[in-house]
């Protein structure tokens, strides 16, 4: 009986250490992935917005996983205009050391474009980083107002 309890006690200690180790690893992975996402790479900005003459707007964000575990990064954009909400989203799962792009495409009609210019729309951006099969994560949501 005593030997079993000793084994069980050792098992619990090892499990606890593994949990703390995983906790440290996931925090490191998420924080470094966020840092790799919001910081510019060389002369390239991390966050870009392009509007083509046809009216298609492409929001792109560069993502790098500098951590030690797989990471899923999510990028959501919400454009709130008077009486209308446009929601866009994309996600990407990266292995350690990998990098990629998340792109959000939206085609605005002439009316929407006009409203976008005349009214002051509210723009919400949400970036989320998750790891350990998406069980752990950090997300940042902010409202960006323009032209003030």
């Amino acid at each position, binding site marked *: 009986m005593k030997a079993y309890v000793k084994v069980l006690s050792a098992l619990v200690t090892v499990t*606890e250490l593994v949990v703390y180790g995983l906790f440290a690893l996931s925090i490191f992975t998420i924080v470094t992935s966020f840092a790799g996402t919001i910081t510019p790479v060389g002369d390239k900005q991390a966050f870009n917005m392009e509007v083509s003459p046809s009216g298609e707007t492409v929001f792109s964000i560069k993502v790098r996983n500098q951590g030690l575990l797989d990471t899923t990064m999510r990028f959501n954009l919400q454009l709130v205009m008077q009486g209308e909400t446009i929601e866009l989203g994309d996600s990407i799962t990266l292995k350690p050391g990998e990098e990629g792009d998340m792109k959000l495409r939206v085609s605005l009609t002439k009316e929407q474009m006009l409203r976008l210019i005349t009214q002051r729309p509210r723009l919400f951006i949400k970036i989320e980083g998750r790891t350990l099969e998406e069980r752990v994560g950090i997300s940042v949501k902010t409202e960006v107002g323009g032209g003030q």
Partner: protein
Amino acid sequence: MKAFKAAVGVAFYLFLFIIVPRMLAEKVPGDSLGPLGSTETIIGYSTVIGLVLASVYAAKTLTPKHSAINLAACMLSDMVGFYIFLFFVGFGEPWSFGRVEKAIPLNAIAAAGEVVSEATITFDFRFFVELLAVVLAMKLVVRLLEFYLERVEENRRRVERKQPDADFYSTGS
């Protein structure tokens, strides 16, 4: 030796949870530690935790392993450890159980020209809270089993003390 061990442990906990936070607070400008809350609150929490851990450590070291006080001290120390984890992953809100939302003003970005009022950061560490809750339950079971075994052992020793070896009487008489 036990008293010395207890004194060293108590001194360690008091230093770590009462003196170190005060020394750090003097170096931090202002009276807030951002998402963790005000410096005063953090120092208050850490003082209480330090006092509890120091007393629990003293009780654990100075009482015999088969005593109920020792069992209570061991279990309390495990629970305090879990509470400290909850406190840190909850950024000062232990009862959020690992999922907490914090509003952070983005002054630096606002100063750079873009008008950004504040960002809401959501931390989701519920998975680790759940894992550590299971670990805590297992630790408590182990503590109970160890306590039971110590009690059995102590009872056996007590019986042995009450009934000395029969050979002693046979040779002595």
